[in-house]
């Protein structure tokens, strides 16, 4: 039987592909370096989160709908994983299963090798619907601090973490505003700050930029790259935007139509740091996005629903 973990054991892409980031890194700070070199020793890094034969079926008997067929993959420490799939392929269901909001019908989620029961520990999530994810009765700072409250963390530490996270996303001075007094892009930054302050093992993102306009989306993609480079956080981002998946990810996992399986995993050997203008003009970028697009279009044409 072909297991998804075998895919990860494939030989790493050419050395030259991964040597580039170090050579072209314009500001090789130590933090950026660690993230930039991540792909090269990716196979040595521990697996932080693993999906093993995840399957989700809604309902029973004849009316049962299998949303997720069999999905397996591994996310290693510091890795930025993009997950793309054709519309209606159950991307959100997959993230819900990964986060433990939804109990998978089959298979399991492992965190640092331990099977997770219930809500996956050490996971932060950024939802697409920022207006519904932030609490309108709490000011920005309280929203960011909320997940940390009641954890026994001293108040000063808590406030310091929130302040640091807010300045990390460029919102150091809006702590006393209500989220709904901010623009959409800023609200999603607050949601990202909340995730950062939590210092998760893995950051899950469910189409986080889908409801923002193109320019703001670009800004936030770059912000996310910056945060990833600085913190070395493991990020799993689900998106329907193919450019976004290639632009951000170390690897792109392409999903099939329903019942969802992993169609292919594609390594993104584009240099880091990346930027909207130069990275997207690279031949490698265009090749990759074409490959992913072909896969998705092929999946769409066999979609039983369309």
């Amino acid at each position, binding site marked *: 039987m072909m297991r998804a973990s075998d895919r990860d054991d494939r030989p790493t892409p050419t050395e030259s592909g991964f040597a580039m980031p170090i050579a072209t890194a314009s500001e090789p700070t130590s933090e950026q370096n660690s993230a930039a070199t991540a792909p090269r020793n990716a196979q040595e890094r521990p697996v932080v989160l693993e999906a093993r034969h995840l399957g989700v079926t809604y309902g029973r008997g004849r009316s049962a709908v299998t949303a997720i067929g069999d999905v397996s993959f591994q996310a290693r420490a510091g890795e930025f994983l993009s997950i793309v799939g054709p519309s209606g392929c159950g991307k959100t269901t997959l993230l819900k299963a990964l986060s433990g909001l939804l109990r998978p019908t089959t298979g399991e989620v492992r965190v640092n090798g331990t099977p997770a029961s219930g809500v996956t520990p050490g996971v932060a999530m950024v939802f697409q619907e920022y207006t519904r994810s932030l609490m309108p009765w709490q000011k920005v700072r309280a929203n960011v601090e909320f997940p940390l409250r009641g954890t026994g963390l001293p108040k000063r530490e808590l406030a310091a973490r929130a302040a640091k996270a807010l300045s990390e996303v460029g919102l150091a001075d809006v702590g006393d505003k*209500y989220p709904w007094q901010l623009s959409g892009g800023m609200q999603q930054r607050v949601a990202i700050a909340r995730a950062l302050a939590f210092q998760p093992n893995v950051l899950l993102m469910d189409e986080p930029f889908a409801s923002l306009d193109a320019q703001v989306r670009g800004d936030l993609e770059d912000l996310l790259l910056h945060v990833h480079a600085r913190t070395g956080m493991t990020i799993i981002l689900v998106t329907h935007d193919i450019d976004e998946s290639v632009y951000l990810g170390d690897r792109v996992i392409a999903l099939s139509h329903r019942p969802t399986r992993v169609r292919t995993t594609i390594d993104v050997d584009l240099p880091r740091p990346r930027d909207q203008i130069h990275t997207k003009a690279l031949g490698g970028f265009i090749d990759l996005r074409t490959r992913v697009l072909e896969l998705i279009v092929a999946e769409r044409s066999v979609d039983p629903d369309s």
Partner: protein
Amino acid sequence: MIKKLIGPATSLAAPVTLVAAWWILSAGSTSPYFLPLSDIVDGFQQTWTTERMEDDLLPTVRALGVGFAVAVVTGIATGVALGLSARARRDLRPITEFLRSMPVVALVPIGLVVLGPGQRMEAALVAFAATWPILVSTSDGVRAADRVMIDTARVYGVSARRRLLRVTIPAAMPQVMAGVRIAVAAAVGTVIVANMLASSSGLGYLVISAQQSFDIQETWSGLLMIGLVGSVLTCTVVLAERVLLGWHRQYRSLERTAP
């Protein structure tokens, strides 16, 4: 600065005009039923002696306050429980719908039999009448609490208790307070009816006995006091709402101005 003064000024215009019109139009009235407003105000001062307040106002206010407080607590507690559990909602629905549609006036005789006359019976009836609007709107509010918000808290490992107290209930608060506001009218109405039908003191009793002895001036005085009591309770609720839901007023005004 000027805007700040004009705001309250215009909002006072309507009541002031109304009272002034009443005063002027009724000034020369010789009808024994439509007294000049000046006579009613005089009568109000004469009626509401300290003794009268102790005998008739205080018992009613106490029954109203106790009953209303009980209604707020039971209404919110039960409403939250029903809002959280679809099953409880379904199973208890026949009972809640039956009790809800029971006119409180119809309960006065049985209240009198079971609890006897007095503040205990009045408070119980007030509690019964005022619980329903709070219960129903709380349950709706809890049910409508945003799934994404609750899921967010769950992902972050927030305990069920904290999720309820810090996410679900605050999210339901605007609807809870809407229910509480509706409950004010139900509570005041109930206490007055209970007074009228089954008491030998209290505001409602004062009004009805004054009317029965053709003391029109005192009837008006009682009526005015009932209005005042209702207004004070409404103001209290509105103030509480401002403190608890300050964010919501701004939030809604922002939504209205947004394109």
